[in-house]
């Protein structure tokens, strides 16, 4: 095998990921090629160095923040946005319901005033309407 092919296999050889046949062929080449053998030695040395490499640790080693708290904190924002949007969308709709009832109530009040003498039950209906309106205002 040519040197450039062998050099491409060295990394996989290092990881024990070469097929037995390819591994044997590579070994055979390394025994007979000084340059490739030198590269193989250097690669092994580099690998040992990489494995011994440490990363500076923080005081507590692991992030000090509370994960769960952060997860819910980050979920809280989209939830708040969704709630606001829902309110903005629903509020005009509620108003639409409330306004016609107001109008009806006004009309009914006028009509009721005319009809009170003959139909007293309609006066109760006006009270119910105004109660609904008050509830809507409270909403």
């Amino acid at each position, binding site marked *: 095998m040519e040197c450039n092919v062998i050099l491409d296999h060295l990394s996989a050889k290092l990881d024990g990921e070469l097929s037995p046949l390819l591994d044997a062929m590579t070994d055979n080449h390394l025994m007979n090629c000084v340059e490739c053998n030198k590269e193989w030695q250097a690669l092994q040395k580099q*690998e040992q160095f990489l494995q011994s490499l440490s990363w500076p640790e923080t005081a507590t080693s692991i992030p000090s923040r509370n994960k769960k708290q952060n997860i819910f904190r980050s979920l809280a924002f989209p939830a708040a946005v969704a709630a606001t949007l829902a309110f903005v969308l629903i509020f005009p709709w509620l108003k639409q319901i409330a306004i016609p009832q107001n109008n009806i109530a006004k009309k009914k009040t006028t009509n009721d005033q005319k009809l009170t003498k003959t139909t007293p039950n309609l006066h109760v209906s006006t009270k119910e309407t105004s109660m609904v309106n008050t509830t809507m205002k409270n909403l």
Partner: protein
Amino acid sequence: MEDDGLVLQFQAGKHQSFDILVERHKNRLYYFALRLVNDHQEAEDLLQETLIRAYRALDRFRLESSFSSWLFTIMINHFRSTSRKKRLKIVMGNALEHITDKKRDQKIMDGNEMQEMARQAIEQLPPKQKLVLNLKVYEQMSYREISQIMEMSVESVKANLSYARKNLRKRLGDKI
């Protein structure tokens, strides 16, 4: 209880199971993130984002891979997307790094400087090479596992690892 059991519990509505899963895997994930970004704050952010995404997606996880592999996949995907945004910054950084490398070569380095140089060399590898190198050297995963997590062929894993090691050889040379 095994990870799979906790996942099923979570999916059944017992959301506290996620805490146990996080407790089990956070250290490994954190150090994996740290080796990718070489910065504690960035590693912490990467971990946080991974856990948030995992929490949101856990209901849809079908246990086709191990839970830990799934977490690595989430972290890697997020790392890749943020790396794309930072690519220009990295290219600029590399240009500056060559200048500082030359200065550094002029003096004898002690162990700490060597380590720092190696960490920076790893950090500046192209994202794919950096990821496969970390999964292989520090997580000791097989090529097959890496190929599943990275969603690439085993041949591609092999090639990327080979390039990563060659790149490090060029950068670190015979200083080791």
